[in-house]
């Protein structure tokens, strides 16, 4: 009887000391990393790779949870509303934080700047303007000239309304006055297929989907949003005399707003290491993704600049009032 009581006391003591320890150090339980994309998507692949690395660095399991839908806004919103304990974090893209907010403010129930704690920029996927390799134009300027003379003759496929490619095309049209027609598809693959089949003259898409076609020489890049190592010859808009560049797709880590400073510091340090891990860099390169770390402050600065630029494009193109 006494023994039993003693035993129970010891267990209780041990338990309480354990929970005391637990309260002191973050992290001490599994972290879930929400990815607002479908499994197998390029961004999901990047997220899973980094989650594995984060598990090793933080010494707790970092499990990915896919919550696709609503142009990444559903999964993003789920993290905005999650507990602020640092055990739910997010890898999301500018589609949810910038395009979604600007185009559909009524269905995007969060403020990208106030409702999330930035943890670091991780990955970029450049957006490229491509034509079939049998097209007569080898330079972007030639195509612009042709489009100006033949209104409606250049039809450009995008991965859908509100995607990076869509805004890029609106910006190109407003900078050059080329007046090219936008044809939205449900995702990048159908748009690339229509381009290869000769149903479109051009497409403007994230490189991931295009890389196979670029390597086999079926399509040719004319302009890109940022340097893509495998295609050094494709210029940026600013390199050929325009004043602005098109925006690519990027992914960054976030936690809900109001997470404690210690937790943020622990996560930021681990994320920096995971993003810069050479094996991940090598793994993502063939998918057209460039690991490009930026600390939280720099991430926010870039977000603000891009938000302003994209809002301006959307207003000019009549996408918002």
């Amino acid at each position, binding site marked *: 009887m006494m023994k039993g009581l003693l035993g129970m006391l010891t267990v209780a003591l041990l338990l309480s000391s354990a929970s005391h320890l637990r309260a002191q150090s973050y992290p001490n339980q599994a972290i879930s990393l929400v990815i607002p994309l*479908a*499994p*197998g*998507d*390029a961004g*999901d*692949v990047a997220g*899973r790779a980094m989650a*594995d690395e984060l598990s090793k660095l933080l010494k707790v399991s970092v499990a990915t*949870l*896919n*919550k*696709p*839908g*609503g*142009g990444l*806004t*559903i999964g993003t*919103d789920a993290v905005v509303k999650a507990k602020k304990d640092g055990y739910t974090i997010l890898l999301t893209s500018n589609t949810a934080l910038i395009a979604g907010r600007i*185009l*559909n403010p*009524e*269905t995007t129930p969060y403020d990208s700047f106030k409702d999330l704690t930035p943890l670091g920029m991780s990955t970029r996927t450049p957006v490229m303007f491509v034509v079939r390799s049998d097209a007569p134009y080898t330079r972007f300027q030639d195509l612009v000239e042709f489009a100006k003379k033949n209104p*409606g003759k250049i*039809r450009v496929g995008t991965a*859908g*309304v*509100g995607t990076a490619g869509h805004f890029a095309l609106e910006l190109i049209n407003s900078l050059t006055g080329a007046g090219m*027609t*936008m*044809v*939205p*598809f*449900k995702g990048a*693959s*159908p748009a*690339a*297929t*229509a381009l*290869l*089949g*000769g*149903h*479109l003259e051009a497409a403007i898409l994230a490189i*991931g989907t295009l*890389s*196979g*076609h670029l*390597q*086999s020489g*079926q399509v040719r890049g004319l302009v890109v949003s940022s340097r893509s190592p495998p295609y050094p010859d494709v210029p940026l808009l600013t390199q050929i005399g325009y004043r602005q560049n098109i925006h690519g797709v990027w992914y960054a880590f976030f936690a809900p707003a109001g997470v404690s400073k210690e937790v943020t510091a622990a996560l930021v340090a681990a994320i920096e290491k995971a993003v810069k891990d050479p094996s991940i860099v090598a*793994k993502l390169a*063939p*998918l057209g993704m460039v690991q490009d770390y930026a600390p939280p402050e720099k991430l926010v600065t870039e977000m603000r600049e891009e938000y302003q630029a994209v809002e301006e494009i959307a207003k000019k193109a009549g*996408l918002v009032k």
Partner: protein
Amino acid sequence: MEIFQGLLYGFQVVLQPINLFYCFIGVFIGTLVGVLPGLGPAAAIALLLPSTFAASPVSAIIMLAGIYYGAMYGGSTTSILVNIPGEAASVVTCLDGHAMARQGRAGPALGISAFGSFIAGTLSVIVLTFLAPSLAKVALSFGPPEYFSLMVLGLTILTYFARESMVKALMMAAVGLLCGSVGVDSISGRYRFTFGIQTLMDGLGLVPVIMGLFGISEVLLNLERGKQKQEIFATPAKGLFPTREDWRRSTLPIMRGSVLGFFLGVLPGAGAIIASFVSYAVEKKASKYPERFGTGVIEGVAGPEAANNAAAGGAFIPLLTLGIPANAVMAILLGALMIHGLQPGPLLMKQAPDVFWGIITSMYIGNAMLLVLNLPLIPMWARLLRVPYAILFPFILLFCLIGSYSVTNNVGDGIVMWVFGVLGYLMKKFDYEAAPLILAMVIGPMMEEALRQSLILSAGSFTIFVARPISAGFILAAALLLILPLITRRREVAKAWTSVPQESAE
């Protein structure tokens, strides 16, 4: 000759014990995923993708591909036994498959779907081996106008899914079109019929709707009947396999289903679901007794089951030869190839012949494995029907819930499933068919998107649909399908009129 060398090389790769092992694991998981309602191959492949990172690219892709075509085998099992499709592509199999089971012929129905799947799967791999590059060109020639016209043709077959009342079938098709228009409008980016509900932003999920209309409604209906009145299906010891007569009637449907399924499978987007519906309509049209479809006709099982397997084979063509994924599963496989450092497309055959020929030959072996795996299971599945509903139904509900939830990890989809479950229950009570609703819901959004894309391409001119030969062909076929029955009916009516006075004169 090059092809035979390739095949030989492929078999050398696949017959390595480790690859045979991966192939078996793949088709085994595929069968399981197919049998469990709601759990689809896309979710399973995505879940297992990370676990293949350590394997060699050939082994990984062989296994993942096995899950895909394996699921097409398993999908028919629950359709036949409990009237709940295990896979979206097995919705049609419910119609006659379950009716066969009620007559105590679950064995032959399961048997013919296993054999039909094997024949169609193997035929499609043979065609894939020899004609892949030229078929890939056909797939590319389909632009938005061609898809629109194909979908118009697809909608005309809706009428074949009316069992009793044509008006009711068309009403359900209209509901399906409406359900299909929920969510973001892909051309303008605006939300339609979402009522501010996040779950509806991307439209109603096909899996929750199917699980509701078929799974939940079936459970509700049987609850009402009460546990005493559980139907005891006769499962005679003999007759677990198709008879000679069954075979005679199924041979042509399997052949037609294979061809149809294969070609629809090659086209990105069309896929296995539409193939199974089209095959059913074709069999009903070709049959001497179309009025008996829906009452347990074996042709109605053999054709669609062959079609969905052939479509699974056809879907590999655009991926392997062009680097274009034909559906969500192929998109994940594309990602898997790229993660392993391979570039699907015209270069794959040269850069990684082991992978290219390995995948193709693994499908010959995988299909054989699936047949060997599935045939001995038939008596076991048939016995499943004797499990008391009090035990069976909680499991069905559980799997339906898991299936609906796991597509997007969203609780809202579970609610969608229940809403459609109650709707499906009422539809069954009042004799409304669910199949036209599903077909319209699949076709509607694709048709609308293609129509509006085409009109953007043509700057608003409708002539684009008749100026392009493939598109014009589909439109013509659709028009014929709609007009011909009217003409024959008019003749019948005329005959009836002339015969009536004669009879009364006598």
